[in-house]
């Protein structure tokens, strides 16, 4: 039984990919310090979350069956401190959160803590739209903003957004049965302070003083305005024909993460100035509510106010076509290079297959085998030949099927 369990439930776009990458790559080293980051694969916590929440995710849900129970069993088995982290856990209902906490030992001896990393709405709103676009969405930024501002919240977009972003509600759902000192809010500092964010995570997860490899392999980088507009156009044109299993490596990984996010000089996505006051007002309410509840805050709640409204807003629904075209050229180049790599790979595999065929042929020692094989191949290429083969096989019986 773990003595202490830290359940990190998001939110998305708060450095969670980096944190999870560091924890996964250092999991052996962490174990020597009695810290258990369970899971044999890097996405074990994601699969666990999918299972707990009953979410579909482009077919991955089939791999997730029973994943939460496996994760929880691993947490219960190891002594010391256990960490679970995935940002989509933010959307759990009260019942799901209660089940999750109970399954890792809450109420049966473990000291369970809930952690939420929070970033200001001024950055989160455009980031969430971009995440939607990177997950095959086609809706415009204006539509997205209208849906999240709709007080009914009855659209899928609105429900998901508030499910993973409404900090006081997430905390209420996850901490209904926990004292406030076991609920921790890690605020994301203003831009330019990645070290500060890691220091806060390190403090929150008890990693201070540990010698960890902090070079990230998996991050979730952002794109600019023309790049996001380009992916949206690709979604509109290709979604119908490109299955999710191909979309993930080609569009999200190759184009969005590896190619277009490297274009850092293009205009950045921002909150439209007319939406800014609404977001600020909401942020103030959230700050007051979190203060009132007395949670442990790591960082500064004023971080949640965000930057002032931008003076020059680049609208991704009306991007500069020259910039989109420029991004598209980079995308085409990346696809060409990937295609060339795949062709070389295919040639290599063909050569290997050819060698394997030759080796197989050589392994047949009977001298007539090659001749018979050649005759069969020739006969199979014409209707009369196939008829003759069929008649031969009917007379000869099943044993000739492998000839």
């Amino acid at each position, binding site marked *: 039984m773990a003595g202490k369990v830290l359940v990190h439930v998001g939110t998305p776009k708060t450095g969670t990919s980096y944190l999870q990458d560091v924890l996964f790559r250092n999991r052996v080293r962490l174990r020597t310090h009695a810290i258990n980051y369970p899971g044999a694969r890097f996405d074990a916590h994601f699969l666990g979350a*999918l299972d707990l929440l009953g*979410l579909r995710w482009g077919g991955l849900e089939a791999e997730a069956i029973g994943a939460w129970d496996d994760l929880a069993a691993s947490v219960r088995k190891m002594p010391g401190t256990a960490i679970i982290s995935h940002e989509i856990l933010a959307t759990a209902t009260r*019942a799901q959160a209660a089940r999750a906490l109970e399954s890792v030992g809450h109420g049966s001896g473990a000291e369970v803590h809930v952690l939420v990393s929070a970033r200001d709405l001024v950055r989160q709103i455009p980031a969430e739209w971009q995440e939607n676009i990177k997950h095959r969405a086609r809706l415009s930024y204006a539509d997205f903003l209208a849906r999240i501002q709709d007080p009914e919240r009855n659209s899928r977009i609105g*429900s998901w957004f508030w499910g993973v972003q*409404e900090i*006081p509600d997430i905390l209420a759902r996850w901490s209904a049965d926990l004292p406030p000192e076991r609920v921790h809010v890690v605020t994301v500092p203003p831009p330019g302070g990645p070290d500060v964010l890691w220091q806060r995570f390190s403090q929150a997860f008890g990693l201070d003083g540990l010698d960890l490899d902090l070079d990230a392999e998996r991050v979730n980088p952002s794109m600019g305005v023309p790049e996001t507009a380009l992916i949206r156009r690709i979604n509109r044109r290709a979604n119908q024909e490109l299955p999710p299993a191909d979309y993930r490596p080609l569009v999200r990984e190759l184009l969005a993460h590896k190619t277009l996010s490297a274009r850092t000089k293009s205009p950045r996505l921002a909150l439209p100035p007319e939406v800014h006051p609404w977001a600020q007002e909401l942020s103030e309410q959230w700050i007051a509510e979190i203060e009132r509840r007395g949670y442990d805050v790591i960082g500064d709640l004023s971080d949640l106010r965000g930057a002032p409204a931008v003076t020059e807003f680049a609208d991704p629904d009306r991007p500069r076509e020259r910039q989109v075209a420029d991004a598209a050229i980079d995308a085409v180049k990346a696809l060409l290079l990937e295609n060339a790599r795949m062709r070389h790979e295919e040639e290599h595999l063909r050569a290997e297959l050819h060698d394997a065929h030759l080796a197989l042929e050589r392994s047949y020692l009977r001298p007539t085998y090659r001749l018979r094989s050649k005759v069969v191949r020739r006969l*199979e290429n014409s209707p009369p030949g196939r008829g003759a083969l069929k008649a031969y096989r009917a007379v000869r019986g099943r044993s000739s099927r492998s000839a």
Partner: protein
Amino acid sequence: MSQVEQAWVQHLRLGGTTPWPEFALGESRWAGETRVPGAQSLELLRRVNQAGAPSAGLVERLLTTEPRGRGRPPLGLLHPDLQPHASHGPQGAPRVDPGELDPRELLRVATTLIAEDLRDAGTQASPRARPKRWRPAYRLAGDPWLAAGARHALTAAGYPPGGRTPRVLVLADRLDQMVVDCWLARCFGQGGPPWPSFRSALAHGNLPPRADLGRVVERRVAESGVDRVQVVLDPAALAGAAGVRRGLAGVGGEAPRVPHHAAEVARRVAGALGGLVSPDQASVLMRGTLLSRLSRATGPATAVGPAHHQSLREAAVRMTGQVQRTGVAVHGSLDSVIPAEPASVDHEADTPAAALTLAIDLLLDPVRRNGEG
């Protein structure tokens, strides 16, 4: 969690059918509940109570099952004295009058439970003949719904697809029906988008790949050669085209189709089932157990509708030319690919309510092994 909310839960648990706003204005109070489920689950239970007499087990499952997947979270109950948009807590989704919930919200709960029933029904090997010793080599392509039905029927008769240098049978129908069949195949496969979203792709000239007969035939000809590919438009000719000649004329040519609202139920169940069982098990449960049960439902079939008629007609004419140019053998008339004049009635608006009624029937009389029940 007010006592009047708890009293409504207790009222519903005992088979009550009083709508929430009416109940909330009454005098009933209760303090025995540890939690009040979301409005979606409570309203579904109320409607199940209206439709029949649920077992105690089903009632408890309804009270503990939440809407699954993406969508609105479990919603709080809006008291008649409160303003709309009053939220569940300091923040959170707004409270609602459960009676005004969209039927699709209730379907999210209902189809989760139906998926659990299906999982619990389990899979067992369907009765099938032992594969014949002398059987033809063939493969099926084209319309996925027809192909799945044909594969099932011919396999059951002892003629599974496969074999050396097989002939390729491309199954086809009227183009608008093939588009519908592609959606049906997804509904009874791993789920997919709602029909309006699926259909909207037609507006951009995008046909589902397996409905694009011309391209399917061209690709198969390139892979296997023209003399090995045949297009089957006449269902009665399928068995013969496959090379099965002894007393099996007509086998596998017809596939059962279900009404539109039943397909919508299946689509939602498939989504929930995907998180409960493996894809192989899900396929058997959906195509076997659930399809068998839903085939009994009656109602209007899924239809593409008049808005896409002209573009489909033009695409069908193009396809017939493509198929003719390849020179493959065709069983039936190629002209039968061209859509007929469609009915102008669109049943889409009635679908969620009809699907909910059907889902409630399935809850009260759950599917069992091999679709009994």
